[in-house]
């Protein structure tokens, strides 16, 4: 039994929204415990004034003072969870500024969340899991170069990817649609090994990530089994060559989306999920199918079209597809429809998720969908920035795993 990770809660409203119990349960599920930094009224008055954000709500003043106590080391914690009511402008400002403040002035990992009365422990679980991972494995996550001969495997919901790395270089890759989790994993591992020209027994360490990470990880005796938020962040900054300073990683996946604000290769804040499959790679697959093109052709097609020519404003994969069929029936070009589909996905991710993290340049897009140029273009338009798509971006999780697992070589 390890010592529980101590998560300091800075919040306004969860007790009155009936969701404090959900927060406590999510923390408990990942062997962490929630606590409230102990300060005095004098601390609150002094630190609230010193911080300089003159909000009215007393509980937000308290949150600010508690954040200062954490940053200044007067109260010790392993991680910070900031939670305020969804739709409260005052709290949203405090939440963002505190997250930024803690992020810039301490080593404490922070997750912020805006809840409603419907928020459940299940929703909070992955976030708490990543938070405790960052707190527990900071030393491992600090690794910047890959050493020796290692393999990383990303067992995703749509595709399975493997990468073999030697001395900080990718020497083999494998990619297949996920069918049977274990079979797909073994097949891509073989592909990557063949390309690298090495044998399985020569590998010095192995890491797994993605949905199937536990199943595959146990089977192949992985040294590192790690959730994808931390692994993908690491892989992204490694491939984009921006291991130091801030960056933002966007991964629009087959089933869910991740937006991660990264500092020095370690996730600071992130959002995960998606309102509906309408904001996922799956929707683009359906669009390609309906247009009668391969998914690899969708991007170039979209780049030739104008998204504004087609009305597509549904968040739902069913209604979204219907809009697309209607547009085609009304004579819209394939190019315009492809562009509209890309714009729709980008817009949803932008509206639903990117509002919750600090967008700091460079913005790196990774995962299979980052190869769809139309989607990258649409996201760049929305964010008003040039998006970086690093080489091997579709192998991001596998690269991150290969890199991080090399940290275990010395231990052997």
């Amino acid at each position, binding site marked *: 039994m390890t010592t529980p990770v101590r998560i300091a809660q800075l919040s*306004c*409203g*969860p*007790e*009155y*929204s*009936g*969701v*404090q*119990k959900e927060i*406590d349960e999510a923390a408990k599920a990942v062997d962490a415990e929630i606590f409230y930094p102990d300060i005095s*009224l004098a601390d*609150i*008055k002094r630190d609230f004034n010193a911080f300089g954000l003159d*909000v*009215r*709500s*007393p*509980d*937000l*003043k*308290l949150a600010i003072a508690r954040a200062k106590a954490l940053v200044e080391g007067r109260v010790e914690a392993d991680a910070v969870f900031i939670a*305020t*009511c*969804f*739709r*409260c402008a*005052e*709290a949203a400002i405090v939440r963002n500024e505190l997250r930024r403040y803690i992020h810039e002035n301490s080593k404490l990992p922070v997750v912020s969340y805006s*809840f*409603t*009365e*419907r928020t459940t422990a299940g929703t909070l679980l992955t976030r708490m899991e990543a938070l405790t991972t960052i707190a527990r494995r900071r030393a491992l996550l600090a690794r910047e170069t890959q050493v020796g001969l290692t393999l990383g495997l990303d067992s995703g919901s749509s595709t399975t990817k493997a990468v073999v790395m030697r001395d900080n270089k990718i020497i083999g890759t494998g990619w297949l649609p996920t069918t049977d989790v274990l079979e797909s994993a073994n097949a891509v591992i073989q592909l990557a090994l063949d390309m690298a020209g090495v044998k399985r027994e020569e590998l010095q360490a192995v890491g797994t990530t993605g949905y199937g990470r536990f199943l595959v990880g146990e089977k192949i005796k992985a040294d590192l089994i790690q959730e994808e938020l931390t692994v993908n962040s690491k892989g992204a900054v490694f491939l984009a060559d921006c291991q130091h300073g801030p960056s933002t990683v966007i991964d629009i996946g087959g089933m869910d989306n991740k937006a991660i604000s990264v500092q020095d290769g370690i996730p600071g804040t992130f959002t995960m999920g998606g309102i509906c499959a309408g904001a996922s790679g799956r929707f683009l697959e359906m669009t390609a199918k309906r247009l009668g093109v391969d998914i690899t052709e969708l991007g170039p097609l979209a780049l030739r079209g104008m998204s504004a020519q087609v009305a597509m404003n549904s968040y739902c994969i069913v209604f979204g597809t219907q809009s697309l069929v209607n547009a085609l029936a009304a004579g819209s070009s394939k190019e315009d429809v492809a562009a509209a589909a890309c714009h729709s996905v980008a817009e949803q991710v932008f509206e639903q998720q990117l509002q919750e993290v600090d967008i700091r340049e460079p913005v790196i897009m990774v995962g299979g969908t980052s190869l769809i140029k139309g989607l990258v273009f649409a996201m760049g338009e929305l964010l008003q920035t040039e998006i970086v798509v690093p080489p091997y971006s579709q192998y991001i999780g596998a690269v991150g795993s290969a890199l991080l697992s090399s940290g275990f070589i010395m231990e052997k």
Partner: protein
Amino acid sequence: MAKVFIYPATSLILSDLVARFGHTPLSAAQSIREHIQTAGLESPPLQISPEDPKKGLKYAAVEVPSGVRGRMSLYGPMIEDADAGIIIHDADFAFGCMGCARTNELIIFLVKKRNIPVLELNYPKNDEEGAEFVAAIRDFLVGLGREK
């Protein structure tokens, strides 16, 4: 005996003075006690469940944050029940049940909207203000006795 809604609803000073001068203070603690002493589903720490913000819809629309609606489910019925109110305006350091400024603004508005007798004050900052503060509250409360 009049029921006097106090603001801040967590105030020791107002709770005490209202009771001391023979009336019933309506405070946050009474509403919390009701939650704590009612059987139902576990929802620690306050036994305010996700159902309570829904009850708060009576006082604030669905686009209002859940924390405001949850708090209003505590205070709304109390304000409706009050015969009078005492409001301290510079209550900047009342936390928890009084921790949300938007809720607090709505509470003061709803108390005033009821057209019941309301006494508005600031906290005393010296002994003379203390004497004025206590005398004003006493006179206000004695007046309520006569009206009743």
